[in-house]
């Protein structure tokens, strides 16, 4: 991968929820040492079960860290116009200006993200007037109209109030809004959740259209492996606040290396196969009280003594990386030599 291809990279990113509880503090390690490199012009997927830290990772990447969430360690670098900068080194104003023009966000649960007392076109106007200078109200409404038309959505929604739109339409408007100022990176957090499959298809298609039109980067979080298979170019699997496997989406589905990923893929139904599907046994761990060593070892049928004691580092096999002792012969050898 050429460095100039990278639009976003992280270094040992850690973001924890620090909660005050009677008798001390409770630390929820939602993002616990994430290393990522995301390229221009790709749809990058983040998969994992509920409570593994996907949404927190998205917020941390977007520099949207509000208490009790705290950035504990690490940095997030973006590259814009050939220059790389640490997003956490920016001040409030710089960050505000970066939002929507360079990076935009589609939050989880589009049902309630629009101001209920103003029309959709007014929401468009608020976004435009906060990021563009010297436009009249009419010009902004005109831009909103053109934008909606280009994306193939009905223009009438601009005159509607949020409560007059269906859930699927609201989700599409949220995605359309994110693309409004042609940002280089769009974060989409569970955009298809809570929609039926027919509407999901429309939403997914809209995301793909936008990416093809803007040639930008879309980072898509969903627990739905079917969506990942259809949409994303590269995919990472998150477990307990860490990325345990990352590769091209096709590669992940064809050749999953981590036992957890294997469970995820094998639990998907396949045509013609009537056998029973097996999912990962047990429950996801509490992020406030992680197991020692590899966080997956209590659920892993192939767990070895070392898994209980030491956390596996990333093993790179070409473009495929995985954090598992099964694939880390080198690490294993090291461990044996030391003990």
């Amino acid at each position, binding site marked *: 991968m050429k460095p100039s291809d990278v639009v976003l990279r992280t270094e040992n990113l850690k973001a924890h929820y620090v909660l005050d509880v009677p008798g001390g503090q409770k630390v929820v390690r939602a993002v616990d040492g994430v290393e990522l490199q995301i390229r221009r012009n790709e749809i990058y997927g983040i998969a994992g079960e509920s409570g593994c830290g996907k949404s927190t990772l998205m917020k941390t990447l977007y520099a949207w860290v509000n208490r009790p969430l705290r950035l504990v360690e690490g940095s997030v670098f973006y590259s814009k116009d050939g220059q790389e900068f640490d997003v956490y080194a920016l001040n409030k104003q710089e960050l505000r200006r970066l939002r929507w023009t360079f990076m935009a966000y589609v939050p989880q649960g589009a049902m309630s993200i629009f101001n209920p*007392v103003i029309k959709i076109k007014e929401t468009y106007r608020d976004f435009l007037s*906060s990021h563009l200078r010297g436009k009249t109200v009419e010009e902004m409404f005109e831009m909103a109209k053109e934008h909606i038309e280009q994306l193939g959505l009905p223009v009438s929604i601009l005159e509607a109030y949020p409560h007059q739109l269906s859930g699927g339409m609201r989700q599409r408007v949220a995605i359309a809004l994110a693309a409004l100022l042609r940002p280089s990176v769009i974060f989409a957090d569970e955009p298809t959740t809570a929609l039926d499959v027919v509407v999901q298809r429309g939403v997914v298609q809209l995301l793909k259209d936008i990416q093809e039109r803007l040639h930008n980067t879309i980072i898509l979080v969903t627990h739905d492996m079917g969506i990942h298979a259809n949409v994303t170019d590269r995919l990472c699997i998150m477990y307990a606040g860490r990325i345990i496997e990352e590769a091209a989406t096709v590669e992940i589905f064809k050749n999953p290396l981590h036992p957890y990923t294997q469970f995820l893929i094998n639990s998907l139904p396949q045509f013609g196969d009537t056998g029973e599907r097996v999912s990962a046994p047990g429950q996801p761990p509490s992020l406030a009280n992680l197991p020692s060593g590899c966080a997956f070892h209590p659920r892993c049928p192939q767990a070895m003594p070392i898994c209980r004691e030491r956390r596996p580092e990333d093993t790179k096999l070409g473009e495929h990386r995985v954090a598992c002792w099964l694939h880390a012969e080198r690490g294993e050898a090291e461990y044996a030599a030391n003990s």
Partner: protein
Amino acid sequence: MFWRDYLIPRLLQYFLVIFLGITIVFFIPRLAPTNPVERTIAEVRSRGQYLDPAHIKDMVDALTEMYGLSGSWWEQYKDFWVRLSRGDFGVSFFQFPTPVIELIKRALPWTVGLLFTTTVLSWLFGNIVGGMAGYAHSRGWSKLLDFLAMFVRPIPYYVVALGLLILFGYVYRLFPIGGGATIGVRPSWTLAYIKDVLRHAFLPALSMVLLGGASWFQTSKLIVQNVKAEDFVQYAQLGGIRESRIMFRYIIRNAMLPQVTNLALSLGQILSGALITEIVFSYPGLGHLLYSAITTGDYNLIMGIISLSIVAITTLVLIVDLLYPLFDPRIRYK
């Protein structure tokens, strides 16, 4: 169709509520175990006056007539509405023979003047300060104000009123200790008279704005704090929308919705007067009048004031219902 489907049924409901309310006001005194006529006579007797038995018969007849108690209930009821339609609530007994409507007319400007001003002032004060405190709820000054409000609010109103009265009317004689204006001064539109009225109104107004404002402050702070945590506000912040715009169009606009309703309801309650305020400060308003009416068993006067109050509240609720869709597009007439 707005007219046929909403307005006309709503207006019918409005008149029905007034009709039922006033009907109840008519019947409750009649169901009460006391007979006002006998009571009046007993009162006269208790003063040690000798009454000739033949005379008593005349008195009973006259009183029964004046109380509107002659004939069957149905006849009385019909008669009551006929008189009401002429704006005639009968004669007061506690200030015999002044008509009830005359007494109400005299007390009304005092009550409306004082309560309208204090209600609006405390609403504005509480909402503006409470809104700012809710927006900056993690700041020190916001927490301090919250603490003060929490401290002031539970103090019983009469303690605050009496405290102010003793402090500023008696210890430091800055303000008069009672009344609506200096006794003996003729009402006029002169500067001196207006100043006199304002001086008399100051302490009652202060006591009400203090407690009312603290209450509005708490509600408003809580609402703003909640709205600020709503998804659409978070989204606007996520989208880098300017802060002033988020504050006014996203937070305040939405937080005002319940407060507008509450203001209208408070305004509707004005016409029942502020009993304790008016008693503590001997303010010549409706509350004072109602209190005197109750203690002297003046049924006509009680019915007059309560009927008026019913009409005021239902009318304000109607107005709010009709205006509400202007503030909140989710409420539509079907």
